[in-house]
């Protein structure tokens, strides 16, 4: 291994170079700073080459700020344009591994500082460039060749910036325009299986991973780095149902990876065979039967949702790698998907969001709905939620009329219904599902039964522990 004049370790990640300890500042709010990774032909790259256009470190004046652009070229058999952004995102990590070099932000907001200590150990940016490229090639072996150019002259940096902005724009457009139907493969991730054994995470262009950390491009890059690793290709197979997002390839993988616990996963469905929920999802969706709608609550929201339950309680019922009908864990970016729970009405079904989440994703909420979706400021319980939705004429209101009719019919069979509900918590676990125990759900099925002659309960391999049993005589 080549020796570098400074230490390289993840322990320097959080290192700050303060003004007093700084030799020079590169880019940042007072100047221009850019970083860009470009795929290039193998022949066009001279491996490990560092080119410096403008003053090098030794020619810089202590305490000054210089404009800064760094353009990395990567080449290799597996390198393709779609991987550029994924590779680029690692620039931040690898630069920060270098002792005495601080890196903040990305793209055209890059802000770096070189400490006096580190500047004293080298007179050129060359070893720094080589160190970063060494890290890239070690961590991402599909990069076979790599070179970098550092620009420190204002005119040159401006020129690079102009070109780069066009590239970023095109890249964003590509990400936005890429949909499930445009690709042949999706990506699977089993990282969470170490915690949630039956969790099968499927990442498609229209569905980011539940944790929010892996989109389709990330999956693609990771699968290339290590095809046997935790992220891998899923041949999507035949499209079985466009609306729910059911693919034969996903079902095959789901069965295999869950050891047969999960038979089907429909990517864009909330109720029918929804995606499994691991434990690290950013947002959980919950069905509110009283309004036939779906509310969403994010991890950071500390309060209660209108159903009287907070994030942690709902997440507790959702997680563990199971398919829980009525609850769904997602990554925040799934709200931006054009296929967002499209099988169940998409945004028309969204009836509640915490205000902090609503603000964060406001741009993706359809304009005609944004004022119709209440937050904790407008609706804190079912009653106020109902009233708000009714007043604003939320699309779900149309579903209510039909539902009310059904309810009336049900009431006539009330007693029978109760017995069935009572038995449900006992039966559900056997079917491999976790039955959410909602606050409103009857808690003690065994103690009292309907007047219609009692209920029958079957215990098998049960262990019942009763700490304190209170028996009272009937007073009447």
């Amino acid at each position, binding site marked *: 291994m080549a020796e570098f004049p400074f230490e390289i370790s993840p322990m320097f990640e959080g290192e700050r170079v303060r003004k007093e300890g700084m030799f020079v500042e590169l880019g940042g709010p007072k100047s221009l700073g850019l970083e860009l990774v470009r795929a290039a032909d193998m022949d066009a790259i001279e491996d490990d080459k560092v080119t410096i256009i403008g003053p090098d470190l030794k020619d810089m004046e202590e305490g000054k700020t210089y404009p800064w652009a760094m353009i990395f070229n990567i080449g290799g058999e597996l390198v393709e344009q779609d991987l550029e952004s994924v590779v680029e995102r690692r620039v931040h990590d690898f630069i920060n591994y270098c002792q005495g070099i601080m890196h903040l932000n990305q793209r055209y907001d890059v802000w770096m500082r070189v400490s006096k200590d580190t500047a004293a150990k080298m007179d050129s940016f060359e070893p720094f460039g080589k160190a970063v490229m060494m890290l890239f090639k070690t961590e991402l*072996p599909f990069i076979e060749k790599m070179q970098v150019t550092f620009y420190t002259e204002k005119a040159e940096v401006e020129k690079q910036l102009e070109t780069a902005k066009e590239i970023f724009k095109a890249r964003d457009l590509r990400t936005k325009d890429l949909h499930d139907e445009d690709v042949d493969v999706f990506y699977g991730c089993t990282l969470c299986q170490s915690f949630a054994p039956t969790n099968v995470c499927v990442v498609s262009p229209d569905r980011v991973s539940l944790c929010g950390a892996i989109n389709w491009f990330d999956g693609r890059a990771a699968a290339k780095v290590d095809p046997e690793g935790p992220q891998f290709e899923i041949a999507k197979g035949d499209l079985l149902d466009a609306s729910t997002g059911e693919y034969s390839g996903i079902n095959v993988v789901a069965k295999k990876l869950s050891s047969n616990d999960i038979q089907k996963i429909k990517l864009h469905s909330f109720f029918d065979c929804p995606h499994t929920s691991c434990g690290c999802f950013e947002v959980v969706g919950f069905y509110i039967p009283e309004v036939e709608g779906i509310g969403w609550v994010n991890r950071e929201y500390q309060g209660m949702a209108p159903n009287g339950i907070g994030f942690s309680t709902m997440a507790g019922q959702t*997680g563990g790698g199971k398919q829980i009908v009525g609850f769904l864990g997602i990554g925040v970016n799934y709200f931006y998907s054009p296929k967002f729970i499209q099988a169940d009405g998409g945004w028309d079904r969204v009836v509640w969001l915490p205000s902090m989440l609503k603000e964060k994703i406001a741009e993706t909420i359809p304009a005609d709905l944004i004022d119709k979706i209440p937050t904790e400021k407008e609706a804190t319980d079912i009653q106020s939620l109902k009233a708000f939705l009714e007043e604003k004429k939320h699309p779900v209101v149309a579903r209510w009329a039909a539902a009310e009719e059904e309810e009336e019919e049900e009431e006539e069979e009330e007693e029978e219904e109760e017995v069935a509900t009572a038995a449900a918590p006992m039966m559900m676990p056997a079917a491999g599902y976790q039955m959410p125990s909602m606050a409103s759900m009857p808690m003690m099925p065994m103690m009292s039964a309907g007047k219609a002659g009692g209920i*029958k309960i079957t215990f098998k391999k049960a262990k019942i*522990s009763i700490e304190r*049993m209170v*028996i009272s005589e009937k007073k009447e």
Partner: protein
Amino acid sequence: MSKLSTGSFSIEDLESVQITINNIVGAAKAVAETKAVAETTGPMGPTPFPSIATLRDWNFTLFDRYEPVYTPMCDQCCYCTFGPCNLEGNKRGACGIDMKGQTAREFFLRCITGCACHSAHGRHILNHLVDLFGEDMPINMGASNVIAPNIQLVTGQQPKTLGDLKPIMEYVEEELGQLLATIHAGQEAAAIDYDNKAMFAGMLDHVGMEVSDIAQVTSLGFPKSDPEAPLVETGIGTLDASKPIIIAIGHNVAGVTYIMDYMEEHDLTDKMEIGGLCCTAFDMTRYKREDRKAPYAKIVGTISKELKVVRSGIPDVIVLDEQCVRADLVVEGQKLKIPVIASNEKIMYGLPDRTNDNVDEIVADLVSGKIPGCVMLDYDKLGELVPKVAMAMAPIRDAEGLTAIPTDEEMKVLVSKCVECGECALACPEELEIPEAIAIAKGGDYSALEELHDLCIGCRRCEQVCNKEIPVLNLIEKASLKAISEEKGLVRAGRGQVSDAEIRAEGLNLVMGTTPGVIAIIGCSNYPAGTKDVYNIAEEFLNRNYIVAVSGCSAMDIGMFKDADGKTLYERFPGRFERGNLLNTGSCVSNAHISGTAHKVAAIFAGRTLSGNLAEIADYTLNRVGAVGLAWGAYSQKAAAIGTGCNIFGIPAVLGPHSGKYRRALIAKTYDESKWKLYDSRNGSEMAIPPSPEFLITTAETWQEATVMMAKNCIRVSDNSMGRSIKLTHWLELSEKYLGILPDDWWKFVRNEADLPLAKREMLLKMLEAERGWEIDWKKKKIMSGPKIKFDVSAQPTNLKRLCKEA
């Protein structure tokens, strides 16, 4: 359903059903029925309310790999009148017990003593708070669903109110009685069964601690899962000696809250000082601070500071409760006219009980010196008595200039008396070079004495052996007056539990391995080389993005040191359960929240059944949660119980060198490959695992060695490549940094090239090729053959055959 209040039901087809009914009470209200059953929501594991034998299988599974290693402190057993029996050289005593059995019994005795302390504290404060707020007061630990992870794990109960904690306490007390009985001669023979009981006692300890802290966090307005709990001034230098000063010592804040209420009601908070030593101090600064207002109460320090603070003459009154209170405070206080008020039945010090007397009469008796102190168990009176005594004593004591610290002239005389016989150095538990320091002081240079100040644990053993009756401690303190006046730090008030939401958010990093581990620094102040060790360790791990969780006395000492910018670690690192964060859970009983965090990861993040499911959750933690505890200055029986409790929960613990005196370690043979196998629960097949953690409880000699050990033992079989690579990076770097060598067994943890530290990958690949004969494809930089352990991210490692799907 609520409409159905009557009816009948029949049960048919019972198969292997065990119904345990603990307590049946007739003729109460029907609503209570609903409550009793509602408590047991969710699925139940196989071991709710375990007794000694219930978890023996699990403990034996652990002992199979982590073998008990005994280090007897003495060769004799003096337990009964048959003895004393010499057990040296495999001899058995008169009752038939052997050395291993006796040593295991001694260790076990420490564990139940510690457990009894926390539980008795819990019982006292629970009864007190139920009296004040009623049984129906709902438990409030912040925005979490799992509010009592230890209680739920062990008993299967999910308490909702203060009253629900009572049966939990009863359970702990019942089991403690059963355990204590086995200390008796002729009650147990095998060492390993004492070890099983020790583990069981450790487990009960965490339940007892959890009850204590849940009760007080709920009712006393403590911060509730608050990462931004306020910062508290800490250190003797923060006390304003010009004001009357109350010093509270111990662990149970119940009585002190009345003193604080009185101070607030009478507008005295800025007219007098209240500071605490040991964990009462922490709980004083949590009292009514859920609003994040900076506390006026101060944390003075640990048990090592008790005698030093008294000798300084600063306190105008001392109020005691229970645990970690020096036994000589009345004697020491009397010399300097510092009245001592005992507020808890557990420590009454031979003082007159004045509970039923008029407060002003007691004040008069204390001020006149008629009594050196008193017992006061009525907290309303205590609240009034203590501030009044402080205000009455302060002018008197100031006028007399009462302090044990010698004047410059006296100092010269005392120093010159020393004949450098060396008795003090022999008696010193820290083996401090006292005679040398005094010899230097004879020439007028007190710097060597000053250096002893931070190393000295304030035990006074030196003074008692001094042939010339030199008050050695006073000399050290005299030499350190400037340093002491500058002892000002900051510590974050105890935040309570880690919230469910934090577990969920951090779970991702635990899975990805971008958080290399959780380091829990807990326990007391019997450090081998001064208080700075714990600061150094915490800073090193925080810089490396570990989660550092702290509690109790270590949490105080960590806050006493500052960086170049004058900032403490609590100011530099935020207090969430997140990588690169420093979270203080609170006092000694808040340790339950650290172990509870591990249970929560398994229960919340992995969706495992928590209730009554200890073996499965502990197995999960042992195999997947890279957490290591450190009790660097462990001195107490409580520390033994806390650490042993962590062990049964699958969390390894490192102790300081003094902890060899606990007499028992649990250490695995890393060379014995047969011990490093688990089942893959997907199909029951055997899988080889790397040798980590390599111990459950052991000691390290230096803080540098401990640091390297902890980094290594954060490695877990389930690490993915990114996680393993990060963990190896830190371990190797720390080993090179502090021990000057690359460890000789790092290769055992390498499954493929992606596991290797990024910056050293090429060098290590070369070493693997040259030294271990592994085959490397240099073009792809890939390991082709060599590793014995295969990496499968979806593998489900477990020690428990019963969790395996049938092959």
